[in-house]
């Protein structure tokens, strides 16, 4: 077995990662700011045509049930609110940010299918729990982003992780810890720091495999359950997919009955189809 990697090794390599468009960084950094000039931001986003087009297609999808078709970022903000629009811009930007094919055996498309499905499921769960749906969507989309950090910074080491997982048929998380010494949770936290994610988002990324840990926050519980549901529904369409450990504490906290689940599964599959059509096209 080769040297184990540490958190610092990851941090040192973050500089080499692709950067998000400047305006997206600005949006992420302004998450708790009240006094930002929305008109200026909307204008900056509009200069990136691909980003604008993707964002507007998301805004016009049945996810939001808008009765008018929005045609500008400013309009999207008017109808959907600043929070929601910001999250859509982030989603559109992040899904196009990491290069494909750097690491042998890593299925980029399956990664994003899983992340998008988790975002959709988390959003439906959040609505059910009367929790902020925008936070849930974005956290669901980014909960495993540390995996892309590891794949991009250490492609050869990650190929070892994938080989180890196949040989032992364990979870990818366990394979990362054993074959690499660092997992996608810590790598995600490093990136969250680097990209200035809000505390809410950091907690969700850091706690999505251990939602019962004190201080993990309710969003971690939502993401944990959404992640398990999406694996169980087989939405990533990955041949060797598996359902990871499901926290009884988290499961109980959401108190899902049969009817709620039936609705949750259906709604997740529907929204997943629609969002992936926009984000993965």
């Amino acid at each position, binding site marked *: 077995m080769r040297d184990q990697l540490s958190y610092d090794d990851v941090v040192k390599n973050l500089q080499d990662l692709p950067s998000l468009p400047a305006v997206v960084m600005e949006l992420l950094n302004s998450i708790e700011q009240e006094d930002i000039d929305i008109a200026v931001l909307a204008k900056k986003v509009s200069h990136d045509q691909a980003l604008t087009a993707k964002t507007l297609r998301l805004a016009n999808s049945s996810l939001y049930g808008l009765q008018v078709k929005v045609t500008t970022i400013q309009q999207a903000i008017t109808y959907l609110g600043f929070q929601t629009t910001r999250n859509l811009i982030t989603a559109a930007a992040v899904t196009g940010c990491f290069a494909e094919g750097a690491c042998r055996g890593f299925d980029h498309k399956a990664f994003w299918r899983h992340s998008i499905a988790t975002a959709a499921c988390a959003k439906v769960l959040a609505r059910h729990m009367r929790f902020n749906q925008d936070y849930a969507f974005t956290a669901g989309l980014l909960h495993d982003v540390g995996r892309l950090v590891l794949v991009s910074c250490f492609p050869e080491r990650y190929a070892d992780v994938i080989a180890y997982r196949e040989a032992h048929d364990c*979870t990818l998380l366990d394979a990362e810890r054993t074959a690499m010494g660092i997992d996608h949770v810590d790598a995600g936290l490093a990136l969250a720091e680097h990209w200035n994610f809000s505390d809410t988002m950091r907690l969700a990324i850091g706690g999505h495999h251990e939602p019962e840990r004190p201080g993990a926050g309710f969003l971690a519980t939502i993401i944990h359950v959404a992640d398990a549901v999406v694996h169980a529904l087989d939405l990533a369409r990955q041949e060797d997919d598996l359902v990871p450990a499901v926290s009884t504490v988290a499961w109980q906290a959401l108190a899902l009955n*049969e009817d709620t*689940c039936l609705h949750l599964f259906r709604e997740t599959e*529907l929204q997943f189809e629609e969002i992936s059509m926009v984000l993965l096209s």
Partner: protein
Amino acid sequence: MSASFQHLTLSQVQPGMVLSDELLDVHGKVLLPQGTVLTAEMLALMPRHGIEALPIALAAQSPAEAAEERSRQLERIGYLFRLHDPDNGEDWAANSLRRLVTDYRTGKEEAA
């Protein structure tokens, strides 16, 4: 039943296909009832209602095909849950999820 329909984008839908569910517009009004045989005229109007995908009924299955599909689903669910022991009482959360997904995929009355 979830196993008997699939969502197709407008470009994949052909005239003659059958709606597996009633179709609502963005206001929640019923546009077309369940079981409608879609015509080219209807499909041409969909974009105007902001509809990009439709739930399409799959061709009726023979009992043998249905049984085969059901055992394929059960096998896949069993494989996905391979790290979980259905008899392990402490793993009840995963096992609840497994039961719910099984009901969802194969239909409740048959799974009971």
